[in-house]
Structures are given as structure tokens and as C-alpha cells.
């Protein structure tokens, strides 16, 4: 079973700042980590490989320093790492990002299963996984919390929904995105860390991914971020105070006013 895991390097802080002039994320000076949901994706891929054989390839699109994220995945059991990096990819929205990742997956030779995180800490859209599936014309399942079985050309997965979970059979090749409930990622081993340090990271540029260059990066990104702001908190609640009797009277009055009673 050949598995491709999509991972993204994100700022390791929950305080994401947006540059008010360019409306892009400020990434300078913030420690970079692997998007936490992607660590579950890597772990699940390694477990699938351990159970079924095959290889795990981790793939990221990002700046050269994103190689560190790939090395971290190698240290916990991924076999191969590919960095897709080029100035031409800069400014990508989710459409351009997923288009580029899909092109890279095709160049890898496809996969039985593509695993992504459910969303990122920074961009936070949760769109990239499903969009990759659309570009590759593959079925997908989001919010997977368990892979029950993986054989006979299909995965049986449990997928989180609002008030429970669904059990789906999904034919391979397919794309899934995973939630943190799916596993408890292992810590690396010393040998793994040392091997990862020495590992060669394959880097692909725009020209390696075909000549549809206008679909990469900014030019391939129809999303226009017009403005970013923290939504204003609208205070709608009213605290009712006083003795219990007073509070009850006031509440009943209010409910009558609202026409509920």
C-alpha cells in the first residue's frame, strides 16, 4: 500500500498575525512546527504501512525551510520526503495549493491512499484535502477518526460528524483527512532522528510539475483577501441579578415581552 501524506509547516504559535498592508500571514520570527493534525496523518500512514507493507511518502509545498517538517516525518517512520518549492508557488490560495500538490502526487506516480490533516493551524480552511481529491478525481472522506480496515481495494473508515460518526466504505485510491482522535503519534527514535538528519530531501520546482504555470501560486489563486479583521463581539446576553424571586419575575417578564410565553 503506497501512501502519500500531505504535511504543512505552520507557525508554532496560536497567535497568528496578519500583515494589515498585504493581508498575508506574518511568518517571520515565529518558530515553525508541523501542523499538529498532520502529525496524526503521518502516524496513521506509518501504521498502515506497518500493517500492510508499502511505502510512505511525505509531501509538502513550502519554502526551503519546510524541509525540517519533512525530516520530522522521516524520523517517525516515513520512507521518502518531497519538498515542492519555488518562488512561482508563492501566494497560493487553497485552489493553487491543492492543484500543485495534486500535480506532485501525479508525478510521484499516484498513491493508494492520500492522507491529509483535517485543517491547518494557520490557514485553517480545511479545503486542501478535498480539493486535492477533486483534482485527482478521487473519492474522499474528511474527519476520519478511525480506519477500521484496509483491504480488498477499500478502506472502511469512521468519520466524525456532529452528533456521532459515520462508517463509510471508500474504494482506493482515495483521499482522507484525519482528526486527532485517530491515534496517538509516536515519538521519534534516536536512530530515526539521525537517519532523518542525513536524509536527502527531493525538491521539485514549478518546472518539474508541468507547464501549466499560471495555475501555480498567486496567478492560480482566484481568492482575493480583501480585508482581515477580528469580528466584533456583539453583546446580546443580559445578566439578570437580584434575589431568586426578582430574577424569576424579571425572566418571566422578558419571555413575555419576547412573545415566548
Amino acid at each position, binding site marked *: 500500500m503506497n501512501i502519500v501524506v500531505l504535511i504543512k509547516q505552520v507557525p508554532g504559535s496560536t497567535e497568528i498575525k496578519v500583515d494589515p498592508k498585504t493581508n498575508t500571514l506574518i511568518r517571520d520570527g515565529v518558530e515553525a512546527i508541523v501542523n499538529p493534525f498532520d502529525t496524526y496523518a503521518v502516524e496513521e500512514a506509518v501504521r498502515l504501512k506497518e500493517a500492510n507493507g508499502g511505502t510512505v511518502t511525505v509531501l509538502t509545498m513550502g519554502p526551503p525551510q519546510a524541509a525540517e517538517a519533512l525530516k520530522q516525518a522521516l524520523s517517525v517512520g516515513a520512507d521518502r520526503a518531497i519538498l515542492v518549492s519555488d518562488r512561482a508557488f508563492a501566494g497560493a490560495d487553497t485552489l493553487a495549493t491543492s492543484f500543485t500538490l495534486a500535480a506532485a502526487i501525479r508525478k510521484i506516480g499516484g498513491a493508494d491512499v492520500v492522507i491529509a490533516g483535517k485543517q491547518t493551524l494557520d490557514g485553517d480552511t480545511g479545503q486542501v484535502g478535498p480539493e486535492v481529491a477533486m483534482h485527482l478525481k478521487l473519492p474522499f472522506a474528511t474527519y476520519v477518526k478511525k480506519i477500521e480496515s484496509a483491504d480488498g481495494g477499500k478502506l472502511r473508515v469512521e468519520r466524525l460528524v456532529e452528533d456521532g460518526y459515520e462508517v463509510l466504505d471508500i474504494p482506493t485510491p482515495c483521499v482522507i483527512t484525519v482528526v486527532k482522535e485517530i491515534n496517538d503519534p*509516536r*515519538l*521519534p*527514535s*534516536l*536512530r*530515526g*532522528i*539521525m537517519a532523518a538528519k542525513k536524509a536527502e530531501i527531493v525538491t521539485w520546482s514549478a518546472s518539474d510539475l508541468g507547464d501549466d504555470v499560471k495555475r501555480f501560486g498567486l496567478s492560480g489563486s482566484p481568492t482575493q483577501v480583501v480585508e482581515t479583521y477580528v469580528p466584533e463581539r456583539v453583546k446580546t446576553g443580559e445578566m439578570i441579578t437580584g434575589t431568586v424571586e426578582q430574577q424569576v419575575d424579571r425572566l418571566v417578564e422578558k419571555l413575555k415581552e419576547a412573545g415566548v410565553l
Partner: protein
Amino acid sequence: MDYQLTEEQQMIRDLARAIAEDKVLPVRAELDEKEEFPTQIMKVMGDSDLFRVFVPEEYDGMGGGVLDECLIIEEISRVCGGVALSYAATLLGTIPVLLFGNEEQKKDVLPKIAAGALAAFALTEASAGSDASNIQTTAVKDGDDYVINGTKQWITNGGNALFYTVIAMTDKDKGSRGASAFIVEADTPGFTYGKKEKKMGIRASSTTELIFDNCRVPVKNLLSKEGMGFIIALKTLDLSRPGVAAQAVGIAQGALEEALKFAKERQQGGQPVIQYQAVQHMLADMAMQVEAARALTYAAARTIDAGAKTYSKEASMAKCFASDVAMRVATDAVQVMGGHGYMREYPVEKMMRDAKITQIYEGTNQIQRNVIAANLIKETLR
């Protein structure tokens, strides 16, 4: 302080810290309360290659040194001294094989340890504590075997180890020249575990009796030669003591951090208690002592790693100094935290209980001072 650790040493330290914080921290109070052995954590440490560190590369290890070991023990102890001991005692039980094992013995034992099996070292008996020469356990040669009889007490990792290095008398008439060291595997017929001790601290580690009742061990399990038992034991303890020092440094560091954090949060008299100079000075003294203990421990470890021929004085100094520091700093951490420090809800009362053992085992601190003084006297005779 900058201890000029190599990149590899930083890697080892960071991984040990990650394991301590991810896997040990969430369960340390429960393991202590239930006196439960940390089987799962030992497995994680094994899977992470931490047992490979002290095993030579030709036996599937990573060929690290004493300082590498100390970094691991310190980081785990910073969170839980009891969990760290199960790991450190494996090193103690493996050192006799590392130093005195023949090729066959090394091939048999070391790759399994590298993969995460535990070991133990069995010297102490009811009537032989500080005076190890008084051991009563005997090993009598009979054909291709030695037959071991006797009872060891307070053996760390008893019941959890795969390999036990056991010191027994092969010739009582020769006194301290009549002891020998044997590798005894778990499940050898005639070898069972007795009482499991209930302890003040390091309660996640297991401390048991080992009972040998006509236990037959093949001659090939004799380490070195007959009569070498006490030399093996002493050399083993010399090499292991920096590890106890590192355990003490870790416990002290953990206690300091807890006290500092609490003192910044606890409000009394309208201000955080850290604003009181009396509290600040305690914390300053604690920090100084921890750093001094760490510096001495790393220096002793580096002395050994640099190839020193004798190092019992250095090893004893580090063990004795660091363990005295751990006891003082942990006690002061409780003091800084006042009544909260005394409650089990906070970790420093456990750290205070855990710190105490480092002044006792692998030779009490009185014995360490004897060793240091004996070396000082010997040096003046040169």
C-alpha cells in the same frame, strides 16, 4: 549555562525531555500513588532507542558515553525520579557485562538490552549493606553449572528485569577475594522473587528480594574469573554513580522549577510571594546548588568519557554532592510552596521523598565520603 553539548547530545536530551513531558508527566502521580511499575514508559524509551545509547555499536547500540546517559537520566528524573530509576538500574545491571563480559556473553545480553530489555544488579543482602563483603549467598561449582543459594534484598527492577548480575561467594575462605559475579536470566529454575518493598519514594520503581534456591546457572554465565566478584561490583558502581548524580540533578531541577512557578503565582499580602526577598534568596540558593551539582556531574562524566583509568573519587564526589543538593533543594521547594508544597496535589512532596534515596543507594553518602577521603590519602602517598 552552556555545557557545550554536541549536536547529538542535544538530540538525546531533547528526545528524553519529550518522553518525560509527553509520557511520564501525565502518569507520575498515579504511578507513585499505586506503586506501579512503568512498563509502558520503558517500552516507549526502548522504542526510542534510549537503551541503545550505552550499548556499543557492534551489539546493536549507539556507543554513547556516560554523559549521554546522564542527560537521559537527568531529563526523566526532572519529571519522575522513580521512572528514571528503572532505566538507570538497567545500566547498573548491564555495566558488569560491558566491562567484564566475554564476546559470547556480550552477544547474548547486549543486543537485548539495546532493544529495551531491563537488567538489575544484585549485591545487597540482609546482613550486607554498606559492608558488601559480608554477603552470604553462595555459588558452588557442580559439573557444567554453578548452584546458587541465598537471598538478595532491595534489588531494583526485581521481577521486571530479564538479566540479573548477581554477586555470590564462590570461596568463603578467601573473604573479599572469594566472590564472583554471574549473569542470571529471569525464569531460571530455582530463581524467584520474594517480598516487594513498600517505599517512601521512587515508588514507580520496583524493589524486591531475589531468592535463589538451588538455582543452576551454566558455567558460561560466570563473568570474568572466580574471585573477581567484588572488583566487578566496585568498578560497576564507579561507572554507575554519575547516573545517580544525574538522577539527583534532575529531581532538584524539577523541584526548583515547580517552586519558581508557584512562587510567581501565589498571592499573599497583596503580592506574589516571589516578591519577598526571603523567598527570592531561597530560590537563588536552590538555583546555584543545582547548577553546581550539574557542573560536577557532567565533569565527572566527561572525565570518564575522556578515558580516565581511575575515577572513583570523581564519581563519588558527583554522587554525594548532587544527592545532598537534591535533598536540600527538594526540601526548600516544599518550603517555598508552604502548605501547598506539602500536599500530594503538587509534585514537590514526591520530589522530596524521591530525593532521599539518592543519598542512600549505590553507597550511602557516608560511604562516598569514605571513598573520596581514601583517594585523597592515597594521592598524598604518591
